[in-house]
Every structure is written in structure tokens, then in C-alpha cells.
């Protein structure tokens, strides 16, 4: 096992009855990396992550998380992994400080609860009962409980769903701080901008398969992608062609038309186009 790898997955499969949620995923995440799993709802993101977190059993495949098979999680391994799940329950009758302090007792190298509460931006809510928190504040409490044990590896499952833009920016800063301190981070999201803003590498998952893994600006060979040139024929019908050399192609067209080409456009795919094409093919 490569010590530089925080996560190593080969041939991961999981089905619920006839519904195949994960259909053969291979994945490596390096230590210190921020890795985003990007995909539409129902693509298999949460199933994959929950197998890595030791919550679900897999049907097939080799999985190592921090060198350990997560299907046999022990307490030492649990203390090295931080988990922020989707929509986990709060402790309505307790205050933020009480909950964070309580959870700090589970970890051998726990961080200072007051410091963590400060870090996630809940210092002025420390004495508030958790049921009085807003949705965004609850999510911060989730993160506080995820990082209180000073994990080497932090899982975040759709951490900013339901955030307003400002809260999301603040949250991104927190993730960048953690990454800068050396924490390996695996997050799932269906927001392209979030993956682009945070991740060193993005894995696009669709239909239970990883369709591509690349740095956000290289996804789908975006830089080398063919340009689409469109124009109208003299009869008025729309024509388009893909070209690696659009400048020469347009010059050629101009020569054919003897001047202006009617309705001429030259476009390259945006990240969104690339992404939609990828998840479209997988369906």
C-alpha cells in the first residue's frame, strides 16, 4: 500500500436490489489533497462516500482508507477520520458548546472545543441550544463535530447545500484553511463552482461510474476541445462544424462566401457544457 495515498479504491460495486448504485469505481486520493466528487443527484456520490466512511458494506472491490479497510473500522481509525454527513441530527436540548465538548471526549487528540467553535464561526452561538440555529449554523456545527478530533482525512457530503452565497464563501475559506494545514479532504457536491473553487482534482461520477478524474481546468480536455463554428447557408439553414483550427476554418468560409459569413459564431465548451456532456453520456 502506497503511503502517499489517503484513499485507494479498485473495482468498487454496490447495488440495492436491482438498482446498481456504484458500478465499478477506481479512485486514488493523495494525502494532503482536496478531492471533489461531482455528480448529479442519484449518481452514487453518497453511496461511494459512505462506503469509504465505513457506514455501508460494499458488494465487491478493494478499498483502503488511511491504509485500513473501512468495512472493519476500529476506534483508532475512526479517530483519524472526520465525517460530515448529509442532514445528520442535532441534539436539540443541548447547547453548541455542550455538544462540541462532549464529542471532543471521544478523540485521543481532540482540539480545544472553544477554538473549534470559534473557527467554524459559531462563537457567539456557543451557549445557544442547537434547535435555535439556522440551517447554515447547523451545518457549521456539523463541521465542528467533523474536525474536533483533528482528523487526517475529512469527508464532507454536500456541505454547502442550502447555503446563501455569502455563507458558502465563508465555508470555502474554512475548507481552504483545513487543507492548508495538511488535512486531506474529500467532498461531494453538485455545484460546479464549488468543485472548481476548492478541489485540486475533480472526479465526475454519473450512473455509478467515475467518468473522469482531472484538475478542474482540465476536465473533459476542455483546453484542447474542438471549437464549434456555426453559420447560415444562403438558403437560411443553420450549419455547424467542429474544428481544431477555427481561425483557418473561418478564413476558408469567408473566402467561399466572398466576405461576411451570415450568422457566424465560434464557441468552445464551458465547464458546464463539458460536465453536462459527461453525465449525459453516462445515462
Amino acid at each position, binding site marked *: 500500500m502506497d503511503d*502517499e495515498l489517503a484513499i485507494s479504491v479498485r473495482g468498487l460495486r454496490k447495488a*440495492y436490489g436491482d438498482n446498481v448504485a456504484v458500478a465499478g469505481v477506481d479512485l486514488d486520493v*493523495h*494525502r*494532503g*489533497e482536496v478531492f471533489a466528487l461531482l455528480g448529479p443527484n442519484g449518481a452514487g456520490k453518497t*453511496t461511494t462516500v*459512505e462506503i469509504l*466512511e*465505513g*457506514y*455501508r458494506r460494499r458488494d465487491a472491490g478493494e478499498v483502503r482508507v488511511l491504509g485500513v479497510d473501512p468495512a472493519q473500522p476500529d*476506534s*483508532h481509525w*475512526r*479517530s483519524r*477520520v472526520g*465525517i460530515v*454527513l448529509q*442532514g*445528520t*441530527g*442535532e*441534539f*436539540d*436540548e*443541548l447547547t453548541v458548546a*455542550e455538544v462540541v465538548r*462532549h*464529542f*471532543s*471526549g*471521544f*478523540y*485521543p*487528540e*481532540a*482540539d*480545544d472545543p472553544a477554538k473549534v467553535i470559534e473557527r467554524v464561526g459559531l462563537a457567539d452561538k456557543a451557549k445557544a441550544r442547537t434547535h435555535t440555529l439556522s440551517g447554515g449554523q447547523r451545518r457549521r456545527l456539523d463541521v465542528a*463535530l467533523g474536525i474536533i*478530533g*483533528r*482528523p*487526517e482525512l475529512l469527508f464532507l457530503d454536500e456541505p454547502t447545500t442550502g447555503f446563501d452565497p455569502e455563507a458558502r464563501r465563508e465555508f470555502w475559506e474554512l475548507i481552504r484553511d*483545513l487543507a492548508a*494545514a*495538511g*488535512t486531506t479532504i474529500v467532498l461531494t457536491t453538485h455545484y460546479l463552482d464549488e468543485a472548481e473553487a476548492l478541489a*485540486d482534482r475533480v472526479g465526475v461520477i454519473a450512473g455509478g461510474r467515475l467518468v473522469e478524474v482531472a484538475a478542474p481546468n482540465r476536465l473533459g480536455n476542455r483546453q484542447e476541445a474542438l471549437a464549434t463554428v456555426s453559420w447560415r447557408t444562403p438558403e437560411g439553414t443553420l450549419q455547424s462544424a467542429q474544428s481544431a483550427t477555427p481561425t483557418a476554418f473561418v478564413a476558408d468560409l469567408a473566402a467561399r462566401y466572398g466576405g461576411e459569413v451570415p450568422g457566424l459564431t465560434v464557441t468552445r465548451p464551458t465547464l458546464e457544457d463539458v460536465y453536462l456532456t459527461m453525465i449525459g453520456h453516462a445515462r
Partner: protein
Amino acid sequence: MTTTTKPATPVAATPSRRPGAGALALRQGRLEITQFLRSRESVVFTMGFPIIMILIFASIFDGTIGGGVKFTQYFITGMIATGLMTVSFQNLGIWIPIERDRGVLKRYRGTPMPKWVWFAGKVIMVVAIGIAETALLLAVAVALFDLDLPGTAEKWFTFGWVAVLGVTACTLCGIAISSLARTARSGSAVVTPVALVLQFISGVFFVFTDLPTWMQQVAALFPLKWMCQGLRSVFLPESFGAQEPGGSFELGRVAVVLALWCVIGVVLCLTTFRWTTKRDG
């Protein structure tokens, strides 16, 4: 890419502060008790119900049951048993599905907390609340209805072991039955009818021997009847034992049946307990 293997904060600055296993269980128990006491519905329902019942019963039946023994002296045994069952079986059977549905249990599973610590926390909570509630019930009955407390150390000892065995059995069954509820709301729908029927057939609201024989036989399969019977041996004169279905208080059989339910409860807990909801896979 940097490959720092640990968060940068120096480990030496904060030496391992994790409490030992016993301390972890006590912390968990304290947290459970805090949550219970801050949830007003639990406190009123669990602590108040047996007291309200004894107030009603003692006011309706203010006569004697024979031999100069007050009705209160008889019904207090049913109310104590019912109170212990409420705080353990009903309380857990209703709350655990809510915690499971909210994902509280799933969150605990994601931490290095040993699994048994969570169960220990529940047991500590049940025992603490059970003692407080029973003491309150006895205080009310003594103050308002001249209840005679057990006079000998032997009777207090019987009181102790019947209560401990009964609460243990009911706690385990409460944890086990919590897995039947599919959603947060269905916990009380599962537990309440079971508890209510058992209370009626086990001699909590009526003199047990006045019930039809078949009903007594059904009740004898479950722990509540035996808890009531054990407690009757504590609060009623020795001579009343002759009126029991078995011709005596049958303390040996009380111990065996309650212990058997503890075993059944453990087996059910170990085989059926779920940390996540069904839809969570």
C-alpha cells in the same frame, strides 16, 4: 502538492485527553440525563404519570383490601412497576427511533466512541431517572395516603433486586423494540399499546387475582406481572402471599422470569439493533 501527513497543529501541545472507558460511560450518562431533564414532555410524562395515577387511584379506592390493609398499599406496587417500565421500556422505545431518524445514532457511529458506551449512557439515564421517580412516588404516597414503607432490611433488599432486574429487562426490551419503528413518529405507536395492554392484564389497575384466569396466564409470560408480584411481597403482609395465583409470592420464579427476559432482551438487542434507518441501507 504538499504531502503533510498530519494536521500542522503540534500534537505535543495537547497530550491525549480522552477519558478512560468508565469515565466515557459516565459522561454519556450525564449527557443523556441532561437531555432528558431538558425535554419537558419526557419529564412530565415519565415522572408525572405514575404520580397522577396514584393520586387518582388512592382517591377513588380509599378503603381497605382486607385484613386492615389499605388499597393504596396494593396499588403502589403496580404504580412503582409501571413507573419503572415507563422510564425504561416506553422512554427508550419512543426516543431511540427519534434519535435514529434524526441521524444522531449515525453520527455517534462515525466517532471512535466504543458502541457499548452509548448503551451504557442509556442505562445510566434510565437508572437515575427510575430511582428519582420511584422516590418521588413513595414520598407522595407516604405524605398523602399514609403508605407503610417496608419495615425490614430483607424487604428493602427484595425491593432492590426486583427493581434492578425489572428495569434491566425493560431497558433491554425497550432498546430492542425501538428497531421495529420505521420512522421517528411510529415509536410511540409501537410501544404505547404494548405497555397499556400489559398494564391492564398484569394487575396494575386491578387486583390481579380478580382478572380472568386466561388473562393472568398471558400476563405471566411478560415481565410486568412478575415485577408487580415481587413488589407486592415487599409492600403487603406475608399472609397475602396465599392469595397469589401460585399460593405464594414465588420470589424464586420472579427472579427466574425477569432474568430470562434480560437474556431475551440482550439477544434481541444484539441481533436486531440498527444504528441507521432502513432507507439508509
